[in-house]
């Protein structure tokens, strides 16, 4: 199994989710995060004091998938999340040892 993590622009979340569901993905976990990268942040001003805020709001999706779906999942995410402008985000894939469904105790691909 693979653990796919992807940081994307928040307003792309719905689109990416839909695309993955169409592909047959049945579960994912989403976290609100702040990203730092090439996309520059923004300035804020409070009573004349200016702050440079380097972190940009992003959404992180975590997705555990069977090995054979890796390629398709990556392609799907890229397709749905790309806007072409800086800050579209990254996909990181790593190996996963075990997955287990708490409710039933199922293990492995069946637990996803």
């Amino acid at each position, binding site marked *: 199994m693979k653990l796919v993590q992807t940081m994307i622009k928040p*307003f792309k979340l*719905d689109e990416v989710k839909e695309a993955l569901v169409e592909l047959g993905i049945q579960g994912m976990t989403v976290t609100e995060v702040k990203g730092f990268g090439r996309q520059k942040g*923004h*300035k*804020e*001003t*409070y009573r004349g004091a200016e702050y440079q805020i380097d972190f940009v709001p992003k959404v992180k999706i975590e997705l555990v998938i069977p090995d054979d779906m890796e390629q398709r999942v990556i392609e799907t995410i890229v397709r749905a999340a790309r806007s072409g402008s800086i800050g579209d985000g990254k996909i990181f894939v790593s190996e996963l040892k075990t997955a287990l469904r708490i409710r039933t105790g199922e293990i492995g691909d069946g637990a996803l």
Partner: protein
Amino acid sequence: MKQILCFFAWSAVVVASVFCGVADGWAQDGLPGAIDTGDTAWILVSSAFVLCMVLPGLALFYGGLVRSKNVLGTIMHTGSILCLISLVWVLVGYSLAFGTDVGGLIGGLEFLGLMGVGEEVYPGTGIPHLVFMVFQLMFAAITVALITGSFAERMKFTALLLFAVLWSVCIYSPLAHWVWGGGWLGEMGALDFAGGAVVHISSGFGALVCAMVLGQRKGHGVEPMPPHNLPMTVLGTGLLWFGWFGFNAGSALGANGGAASAFVATHIAACAGGIGWMVAEWMRSGKPTVLGLASGVIAGLATITPGAGFLGPLSALLLGLLAGALCYGAVVWKTKLGYDDSLDVVGIHGVGGFTGIVATGLLASVGGQTGLLFGNPGQLWIQLVLGVASIVFVMVGTYIILKIVDVVVGLRVTPEEESVGLDLSQHNERAYS
């Protein structure tokens, strides 16, 4: 940009300096003789109450309904309008609305910069002229602020300021004059106790034109855009309700029986509006909601406004129930029409205001006025004229103003700015850290 701002700032200063010596001296020769302290206390309080409706009331009511990236931008609409239109009113607006009538259409210029508006009693009341002026000022400010709900989350800030000034001077002041300042509608016998036409029809139908001209928000109808903070909206609702007592019962211009009657009708219609909307929503979609109750309260309040001083308590109850259900229907129906009146100014203030104007023609029975159901069929006709004339005038006028503003500074923020949100793109601020 900078030059324009500079220019505005300086002209204000210069103009003000000139008037300063003249007007401020002038204003003092009124005799405070016949001031009634009770009436004055009540209208001072009422003016403060209406301020409370605008800020923090309306600002938070609207602010809670938008997405969190736009809450400051939304609040800023109301806040800046309050400041700016108050000054416009003092310099020009009041005179245009309440100066000596010129041909039934507009007020004269004798009160420019509040020249001659002093502590002396305002004719026909027991309150100082200044108190009448400031009470009316609050109405002028809130009316423009109400419109902003229709183009929330996408209007450029410079466009907002320009629009507000033009709309207030060219639409609000004349309309107020027509109905309350000695103009043709008032002379015709049109009844609008506290602003069903002047405030609610005008903001509601102005809002309709704005929503149509500006177009939908990015993602409208596709992404969910739930209110980011409903307790904030409830807080706004409570403050609006509270302040509305000043708005409506204050319109009696004294602490008298008429104020009592308007106060009671206002409260009953608010409650009935809340129940009406809640029940209608419950029946249609299976659950009563907090936002529904709050919206119904506002609908009830907007609807009773023109008749607050003319309707008895049970008429108010009936009208309130109707208002809640009707405005709920209008808001549901909107989604089918496709225009994006973001915070439902049309469905609540437009529909509510018009309903109230007509209902006054039917149900008036208090304060020396009678409607159709109490034997005076002519009144209904007059009310229809009032309603329709206001709608036409406001819609045409708003359209022209928007076109002008679009040419001068452009109406909408860029799509990029819109997805970042108004808070950061227009104001370099975030609401929550």
